[in-house]
């Protein structure tokens, strides 16, 4: 690949590219410049900050597990089967990718809320979703699921079915083929999809604040905590924002190698 003859790019293209890079990096640099380094440790280890961080990590972990449990079968069905209306189903399932999260929050409210579609059934079971940690997990899963499905479906398609066909012709049952051939083959794609889903869950804000509310220890995840503090305690908000940026950078680092080898 590296021996390919280098085709030059037009010189002018560097100018808009640089503007684009600046547009992304300048705000981050500006934020870092506002960090109160002297109090940084105290700010990011305050009790309320740690509560929000721990809630964020726990809910995002549960959402990621849910995404894997539901998203892997979805990706397999979309990549390996043919059925009428498949294109429509794929588009609709990927909708949360482009939907404003606040719209997702409203939709979830009308589904799982007290007066929602499933509200009376849930009520009969004694389950109250709104204002609970369950609501946070639901919101996060709703917005992150497409990330896992997209990356895994891509991995499944580019992996092709050669090995699966061979395994099946040697007498392996579909479940065995799925477990012993398909899954190991797309494991890198699955891992990077799960990492992306985790990152999206960690950053989830709009659907959570619309659907789950904001209470320390129950529904106040890190983004909500930052939103809360941005006016009264900007130093703490900036410090915690930096923590999220670092997490995001780590996540990109984890998810990227799989992509470049594809």
């Amino acid at each position, binding site marked *: 690949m590296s021996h390919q003859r280098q085709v030059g790019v037009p010189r002018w293209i560097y100018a808009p590219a640089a503007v684009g890079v600046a547009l992304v990096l300048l705000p981050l640099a500006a934020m870092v410049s506002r960090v109160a380094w002297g109090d940084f440790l105290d700010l990011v280890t305050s009790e309320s900050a740690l509560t929000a961080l721990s809630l964020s990590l726990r809910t995002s972990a549960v959402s990621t597990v849910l995404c894997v449990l539901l998203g892997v079968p979805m990706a397999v069905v979309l990549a390996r089967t043919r059925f009428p209306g498949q294109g429509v189903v794929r588009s609709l399932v990927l909708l949360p990718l482009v939907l404003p999260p606040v719209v997702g929050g409203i939709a979830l*409210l009308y589904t799982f809320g007290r*007066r929602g579609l499933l509200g009376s059934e849930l009520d009969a079971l004694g389950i109250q979703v709104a*204002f609970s940690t369950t609501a946070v997990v639901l919101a996060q899963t709703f917005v992150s699921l497409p990330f896992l499905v997209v990356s895994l479906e891509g991995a499944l398609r580019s992996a092709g079915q050669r090995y699966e066909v061979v395994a099946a012709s040697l007498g392996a049952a579909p479940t065995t083929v799925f477990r012993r051939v398909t899954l190991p083959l797309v494991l890198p794609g699955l891992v990077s999809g799960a990492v992306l889903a985790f990152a999206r869950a960690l950053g989830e804000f709009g659907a959570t604040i619309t659907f789950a509310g*904001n*209470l320390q220890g129950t529904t106040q995840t890190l983004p909500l905590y930052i939103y*809360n503090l941005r*006016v009264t305690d*900007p130093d703490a908000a900036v410090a915690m924002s930096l923590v999220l940026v670092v997490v995001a950078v780590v996540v990109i680092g984890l998810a990227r190698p799989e992509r470049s080898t594809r």
Partner: protein
Amino acid sequence: MNRSPLVLPAVLALVLPLAACGSDANDGDSAATTTLTVYAASSLTATFGEIAQEFEAAHDGVAVDLNFGGSSDLVTQIQEGAPADVFASADTATMDTLVGDDLAGADPQDFATNTLEIVVPAGNPAGITSFQDLAEQGLNLVICAPEVPCGAAAQAVADDAGVTLSPVSEEQSVTDVLAKVTSGEADAGLVYVTDVEAAGDDVEGITFPESASVVNTYPIVPVQGTDESDLAQEFVDLVLGSTGQRILADAGFGPAA
């Protein structure tokens, strides 16, 4: 050197859509040559909309741009250089922040007051009748976060009444509290009297005597360094004058002390 002209289209491409967004707020008043930008607390949305129309009707060629938000948010924006000509706050503490930063162009003047009211979904499913009822176990109570004026007021009223509130959610604005109540997710919320009036038939308001202990005062001021200081002062005068006061009273605001 010959690259620099090409930066311009790139920058324009970035900025033009934003500029288009901004001009939408003028309500298509394309004849306007001067724009007065008013930053006001969310609870003033309806009344200041009306007052702005009166102002535009009385001033040819002037368009009023209204920007509503949480008072503390608005002050942060002004501190960061947002082009506000007038600022109207939902409480004096937030106005004090602006004055403390030397961003007030004059002495702030109080123009209205507001008190808290209990808001419940239509039909009052939880049967709330008093402020004490809000402390009931298992009640889905939603209030503003203590960092924002309506939350500070709720906390102060609860302290005065000796009632411990344990909300299921602390929201960032009265609008967010109302949304949780109108959707029926919350059994009760604490918002301002004027918010209940504005919310219509989806909700009911329940007044309580303890609310009198905490009265929120709304101050208004022209912002320091505005290019439109005369117009800004005229807008402030309109709010303080009989027209503004009538519109505010109609919406449920009390007169300034």
